[in-house]
């Protein structure tokens, strides 16, 4: 059992949990993830590491309520326990001195990109971050991202905060401005990562994306998270989650993310009814 030592709601339906897991903290690196299971009946879902604290022995993850498991997770309070918290899993992000790196975060992607930007900055890179959300009430960690960036651009789709529009617009402007960009890292919804990769492709800038297919075990056992990269089937859990965005078969990823749409709806309704009964 793993104790939730702190929780905070960062934005509408976006929550931060700090979980006590000292063994994981000792090995955690930017870009890795954990697999969690709430209780005996729970499913296993992956959550990317957002932060970790050696002194406290805690791992921070951020998630958005999108289905049954995240809905159930959001009901938990500090002091509660979750059954399983496994990691650190996946290959850590490649951290090196590249020069200028643009870190593009969409929505909940702000959480996993923060430790990557931090590690890249510590390595001596110039970090330009682009943080985007649909609307102001979905934005979080602006300060945190600013603190690990030399420059931060914020966008909202509806113009309620920062520049109006989507993240690919300032990304394209940067690439066209003559700024020498050596690497782009994009983390967020699949469609956002896809369009970031499409934006950078004509400029030939290496673009790393962190893929988020459905997983079960997260250790290479089930093959659920298979993705096609450069025409070769890879497992996101053990070969990724970071891949070259220009090589990813985005349509396949999008299709595979929709496998359980009906079941997810059923499960969500099932739990909402359960919670309703309890209240």
């Amino acid at each position, binding site marked *: 059992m793993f104790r939730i030592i702190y929780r905070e709601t960062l934005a509408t339906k976006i929550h931060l949990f700090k979980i006590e897991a000292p*063994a994981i903290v000792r*090995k955690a690196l930017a870009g890795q993830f954990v697999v969690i299971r709430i209780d005996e009946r729970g*499913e296993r879902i992956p959550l990317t590491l957002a932060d970790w604290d050696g002194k406290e022995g805690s791992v921070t993850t951020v998630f958005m309520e999108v289905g049954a498991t995240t809905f159930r997770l959001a009901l938990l309070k500090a002091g509660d326990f979750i059954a399983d918290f*496994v990691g650190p899993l996946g290959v850590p992000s490649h951290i090196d001195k590249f020069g200028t790196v643009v870190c593009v975060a969409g929505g909940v992607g702000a959480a996993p990109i923060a430790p990557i930007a931090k590690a890249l900055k510590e390595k001596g890179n110039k970090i330009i971050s682009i943080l985007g959300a649909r609307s102001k009430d979905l934005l979080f960690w602006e300060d945190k991202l600013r603190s690990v960036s030399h420059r931060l651009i914020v966008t909202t789709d509806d113009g309620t905060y920062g520049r109006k529009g989507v993240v690919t617009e300032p990304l394209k402007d940067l690439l066209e401005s003559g700024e020498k960009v050596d690497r782009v890292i994009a983390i967020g919804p699949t469609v956002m990562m896809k369009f970031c990769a499409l934006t950078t492709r004509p400029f030939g800038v290496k673009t790393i994306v962190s893929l988020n297919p459905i997983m*079960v075990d997260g250790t290479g056992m089930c*093959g659920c998270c298979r993705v096609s990269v450069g025409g070769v*089937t890879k497992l996101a859990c053990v070969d990724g989650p970071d891949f070259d965005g220009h090589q990813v078969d985005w349509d396949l990823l999008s*299709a595979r993310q929709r*496998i359980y749409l009906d079941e997810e709806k*059923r499960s969500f309704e099932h739990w909402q009814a359960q919670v309703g009964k309890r209240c």
Partner: protein
Amino acid sequence: MAKLNLNREPMTKQDPKTRGKNFNEVALGYSAEQAKAEASRCIQCPKHPCAEGCPVEIDIPGFIKAVLDDNMPEAVRILKDKNSLPGICGRVCPQETQCEQSCSLAKKGAPIAIGRLERYVADWERTNMEAMNPKAEPPRPTGKKVAVVGSGPAGLVAAADLTKLGHSVTLFEALHVAGGVLMYGIPEFRLPKEIVQAEVAYVASLGVKIELDSVVGKVVTLAELLESGYHALFLGTGAGAPMFMDIPGENLNGIYSANEFLTRVNLMKAYQFPEYDTPVLVGRRIAVIGGGNVAMDSARCALRLGADEVYIIYRRSEVELPARREEVENAKEEGIQFKLLTNPKRYIGNESGWVVGIECYEMGLGEPDESGRRRPIAKEGSEFILDVDMVVAALGTRPNPLIAQTTPDLKTTKWGTVMTDETTGKTMKDRVWAGGDIVTGAATVISAMGAARRAARDIDEYLRR
């Protein structure tokens, strides 16, 4: 001497029509009368070839005699002296190619149903002996610490044996429950999870410390374990990585590896969705590719989830099916349809990325290949399309590379299996042993247990040096 009885006592099974709709155990076990009747067939021949056919060296005539003498605690004692997992072995061991094949009666008629008797003794113990279980005298502690990685059949046996020898053992498991393939792979109707957990609990009761949710290779490396005070390591991480055919369309929605399908159904209990959160697709026309036990398990799970038609697609003919005969018969009785001498060429998808069909070849058989079986050859121009809405690829597994990747001095073969000394299980890395599927590639529960026993013996010798 009494007249030889050449016919074995049959074991009751759930009716095929009924069992095809539930996940309860298919075989119902012997009653006391049936067990005694079967035990009475044993001629107690002096050479007991059956015991020699047993990879874990159980005194088979001994426990059978105890059953006949109505001395069940003694039967349990004899069985558990050599086998910590009898309830599991009694159900899933291929006895027909091991102890039962060597039985003296096999030359004249049906060999003694050793597996069924083993199961009977194990089940008797589980229901009758808990209260009277006399704790064996705890062994003298040696002060040595051993880490066992992986809690499948090999890991459980290595951990139990080493603990009985007085070593302090910690068993590391990557998943949230111990048992490995016994939990995620083999279905409830063939091996109830309650029985696996009872036998895991027995191993824990010996003094084995079990660390769940611990992915060795990630949260801690072998080198770190050895530096942190473990005197020796046993690797029993199995062959958990699924193989695919690498043909077009294999990543379409609706195509599962058997590992994923069975993990969802067994480990995550998707057959109880939405009470349990993990979903699994329920197809109407399902093809399972492969002819081994895992393919039979997958097909029979798919049927129980509610499929209309379930096909086994296998590239060789019936005689080459690698699955146990008993499981093939069970599958047939339940209505699984066998499409033999058939092999997929490619999968066909619709515009939303879901599988809708398989283009298959008809196959012929050529000369025997290196495995001794006749090589399957695709007949050009024989292609036909089988309409399906779900596929389970049960094409075999290979060792998970996570540990090898973080242990450069652990030598592996081109198939990813760990190289060991055949008799001792010692790897090329100092103080590290390995056994089971991680060494042999996917094989049987009992062969993994036998390898673990031999490695435990060698580890013990090393630790006492």
